[in-house]
């Protein structure tokens, strides 16, 4: 029902969890997308995790203040690949030297292509809700199809990053190709 969405939006604003104008700051949609991201990570294999010791953590970098806060609140005591998650606040202009296993890049954070490029050499799973993300170098794009979140996955990009994505995850997603691959 379309009006559900209206009401949802209405409530989000209404309940006044936040000052007006900052309604996105604690948006349930962000929480949902991060829940997706956390789940997705369970279906991806990183090359180096196999032999990592207990001391290592799973580095989850988040670009965007609102999703960062949600990640800190909800993922701090969870695990991926049996590694404790360490949530790292990623700044768009300070990606140098930051090691990420997974990077969640909020569409609200502006131009992501620079960030993606800076992260790329390492095996990092890039996830974003920016439109067209999976077609432009990113690996997983979370897109809104009416009232649901859908995934678009660029398998070629994941391969370049050295990551293996399980077929179970692919079966729930739309597989897309990118311009990079077409050119190479």
């Amino acid at each position: 029902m379309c009006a559900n969405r209206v009401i949802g939006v209405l409530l989000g604003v209404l309940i006044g969890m936040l000052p007006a104008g900052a309604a996105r700051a604690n948006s349930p949609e962000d929480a949902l997308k991060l829940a997706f991201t956390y789940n997705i990570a369970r279906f991806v294999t990183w090359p180096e995790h196999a032999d990592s010791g207990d001391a290592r953590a799973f580095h989850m970098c988040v670009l965007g203040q609102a999703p960062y806060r949600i990640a800190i609140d909800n993922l701090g005591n969870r695990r991926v690949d049996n590694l404790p998650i360490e949530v790292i606040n990623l700044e768009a202009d300070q990606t140098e030297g930051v090691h990420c296993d997974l990077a969640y890049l909020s569409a609200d954070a502006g131009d992501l292509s620079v960030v993606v490029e800076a992260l790329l050499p390492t095996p990092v799973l890039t996830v974003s809700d920016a439109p067209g993300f999976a077609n432009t170098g990113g690996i997983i794009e979370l897109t809104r199809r009416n009232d649901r979140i859908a995934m678009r996955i660029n398998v070629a990009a994941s391969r370049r990053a050295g990551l293996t994505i399980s077929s179970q995850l692919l079966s729930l997603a739309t597989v897309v190709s990118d311009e990079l691959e077409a050119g190479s």
Partner: protein
Amino acid sequence: MLRIERPGGAVSAAIAAVLCASWSSAQAQNDDLFDLSLEELVNLSVTSVSRREEALSNTTSAAFVITREDIERQGIRSIPDALRLAPGLSVHQIDANKWSIGARGQTGRFANKLLVLMDGRILYTPTFSGVFWDVQTTLIEEIERIEVIRGPGAAVWGSNAVNGVINIITRRPDGAERGAVIGGTDPEGSPFGAMQLSGAFDQSGGWRAFAKYQEGKANKAESGASAEDDWNLLRAGYRAAVDRDNNQFAFSAEAYAGEMGQNFVQFSAAPPFQTLSDVDSEVSGGFVTGEWTHRHQRGASSKAQFSVDFADRTGPIDLAQTSLTIDGQHQWSRDRQDWIVGAQVRLNDYDSGTSPAYNLLDDIDDDHIFAGFIQGEFELAPNALSLTLGTKLEHNSLSPKNIEVMPTASLLWKPGPSTSVWTSVSRAVRTPAVGDLSASVLDAQPALPPGDPSNPFPLPLRSRVNGNPEFGPETLYAYEAGIRSQVSERVSLDFAGFVFDYSGLRSITTTGVFCNPSGASPLVDPLCVLGSDSVFADAILNNALESRITGGELSMNWILSDRARVAAFVAYAREDFGAGSDDAFNVAGYPELQATLRADWMPVTGFSVGVLVRYVDDIEAVSIPSLTQANLNLRWQINRDWALNAGIRNLLEDRTLEYRSELSDIVSTEIERSAYVNVHFGF
């Protein structure tokens, strides 16, 4: 904050929030999103999440949601079977195509105090204020969820939302769905086949179409003979939705045609004074709806909806009806207040034939309803206490009163984050149906043979009940309270109790006895019996009955693990008649106690087991003993494309008579144990 979409859209948003997956009250906290599986996330509506966060346990009514997952795991293929999952409803099958469905102490084949909607479109038939369930057969895969509110919703939904509101919500096509072919046998063991197709409109929306053919096999009467209640129905439908900027558009249409069989009981002048005939009603109909929602700044929104409905059926009585409904509503909020206002126009047009048993006098061939409502919610203490006040005003051309006022007031208190307590007082009415005003029903009860102690005449004595043009509304004052609590991370409890005080309920007054066909009174002219085949005892409908229904429902959800969960409820309702109890007419029986336990278990990924066990107390008014029923369903998602569903319905008994029609015009039949298999192929 009770967020309810109103008549036009008629979804109770907050309810969806509270119980979005009926299991999920236990996962309703925001952070529990992170405990969901990817499959669950993919199927989660963003708006339900939005609401879930804030509106959890914020409704001030007894609400329950039947989700698509609940339906799937139990292998359910019909709306009445799905409704059996909700507490406080009373669902009984009368024959292969007739049902008694009601809420909180009120049910029957002609139950008339339940408002049933599909996507906000009213499904009840104004001739008797009830629903022809045999044609409410939308493909079950089209349904997203069913929201059930026990108790009145008149302040927003208007008349007929007296004992409960059911809103069947279809899936919104989003352009990302797959096509499907579904076929096999349904839980009653009857064959069906269906196809679903879908497509996208670029990025902004999608469409879905389906066609379905279904047969129902004949059941046996108590005598052991076939009751000839076999049926078939062909149905097709189309839905489309487009989301553009701040506007959302939705369109849907469905059409159906088929035959509904039954053994029709007719009077005969020779003993045993009745004969059975196999009458197949030809049914056809459909609807077209359109809906436009516009989002304004700062969360306000407006919505407009229209729908046109057609329904036609032949014999035992021919009925044709066309309805046009136009709705508008607007909601906004400011300073911790939420407001919603709306208006509705509904026009009905009727055409009816005649039959030996019932006739609708032809002087009513249309009616109109104009209604408006307003409701405000006021937060008295932030996140702790809120008050809701609202009322609906309705003008119905069939009601002798010019305007019905249906107000409600409710209070919500949240002593802690996981508990909420609510209470409400409301007034609701059932406005007169065409049948109340103009019907003439012959042989509502079997004729009394000559020699019966209650029959002083040497001829069979037959009852004839006539409508009353002065028939007025039936009124309810409802007092309700409830508590919801997330007892632990995995267990949630919900209790609701109610006292319903009715006045002006339908009753009858005897008006005399008449020889048939001469029409002379045998009391005045005793010899008139000589040229007659029977004597009519005539009565007229009026509003002299009062009653009180008291009861409550306790339900529980328990998530044992990621793979296993249990839901259970107990519902109680007891009716005590006050003034006019000797003149009660056509009071259908209701089981005072009902209990249901259902469990889902997924031993290995892709394979799930659903079990449902139900106890239904005896129903005195229709002489049905208490019964226990059990269903088992196995579902195997073989791979992405193929799924197999198999099960057994009515495990415990070979055959069960669930209910008897309160009008003795048809033969009620026994539902047999059945085994079924159906296959779902997605492409």
